[in-house]
């Protein structure tokens, strides 16, 4: 009620008090013609709004296709990533993302000048044709036999991993710098163990068959000596 009174009072105010002088819509004038007032706005999107008694009334903004009202995760097909990462712990190290990459990759790139930023900032010289090396060029790669000096060996060390890699190709990566010899011996041991196991199984089967045969023979004999208890070997097989 108070507000209504204030509004009625405003009607009696002088038009001079309005920022638009005599044209102020605050001063209500009876619409004798019976037509509504219109606001014509020019510019980028010219529009005519039948504003009636309302001052500064504008067209509501256009409804855009893509707003926050739509599920943007679904729209951009990011639901999988959302479900994968939201609220779940992701391992911090780069090596957990690229587990099969040899070498120490968790150290900052600028330390060993291997950062991707440096590739963008200083792109490598390219454009030259890549050709296989000639025998003369290959002679430059003739090496002296023997192990590498200690100082260079530690650079190539890979970090110790808690879990063994299932990938056969990278089996030897976990641990210290592998050498050709150790690889060969490892493989040799593996095959030897397998063979040994196979032979063991084969022997066991033979024994089992022998026992069965003996059992059959004993049954056929039906002798009172053998009709009693079972022998320890029969116990184990039965």
């Amino acid at each position, binding site marked *: 009620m108070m507000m209504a009174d204030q509004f009625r009072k405003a009607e009696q105010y002088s038009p001079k008090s309005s920022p638009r002088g005599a044209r102020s819509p605050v001063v209500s004038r009876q619409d004798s013609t019976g037509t509504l007032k219109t606001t014509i706005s020019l510019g980028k999107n010219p529009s005519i709004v039948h504003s009636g008694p309302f001052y500064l009334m504008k067209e509501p903004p256009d409804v855009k296709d893509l707003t926050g009202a739509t599920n943007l995760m679904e729209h951009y097909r990011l639901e999988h990533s959302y479900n994968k990462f939201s609220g*779940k712990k992701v391992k911090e190290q780069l090596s957990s993302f690229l587990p099969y990459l040899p070498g120490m990759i968790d150290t900052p*790139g600028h330390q060993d000048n291997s950062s991707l930023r440096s590739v963008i900032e200083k792109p490598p010289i390219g454009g030259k044709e890549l050709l296989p090396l000639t025998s003369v060029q290959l002679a430059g790669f003739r090496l002296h036999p023997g192990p590498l000096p200690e100082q260079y060996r530690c650079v190539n060390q890979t970090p110790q991993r808690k879990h063994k890699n299932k990938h056969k190709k990278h089996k030897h990566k976990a641990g210290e710098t592998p050498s050709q010899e150790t690889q060969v011996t490892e493989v040799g041991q593996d095959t030897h163990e397998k063979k040994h196991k196979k032979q063991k199984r084969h022997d066991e089967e033979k024994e089992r068959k022998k026992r069965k045969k003996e059992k059959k023979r004993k049954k056929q004999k039906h002798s009172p000596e053998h009709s009693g208890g079972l022998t320890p070997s029969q116990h184990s097989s039965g």
Partner: protein
Amino acid sequence: MANSLENLETQLELFIENVRQIRIIVGDFQPQGQNVLNQKIQSLVHGLQEIDKLKSLPQEVHIPLEVFDYIDQGRNPQLYTKDCIEKALTKNEQVRGKIEAYKKFKTLLATQLNNVFPNELTKYRAIRGDERTVT
């Protein structure tokens, strides 16, 4: 596109594997390993040729530069995705809060205006094409 990217990935993996094998050969070099080393060096060149052929393929792949920062710091790039999702969640909650607040404000304002200026509000609704009554 996906196949060609996979092909590039395979080539890169092969190249890395070649380098790793060379490192093993060189690590404790045996005189009889020279031929193998030479072959490996040639296969490196071949690998580079293959990668060079495929270099134009990932031009349509857009990667945010920030991901490189994560990698350069030795961090898992998936953390970038995670951080982005967390940011989006926070922002979404903020925007949702704003929308709710504006809705409440609109309802309150319309109710109050209806109490004070019932005729004007009816006209306003007629212009807007909204004939709903304010509760």
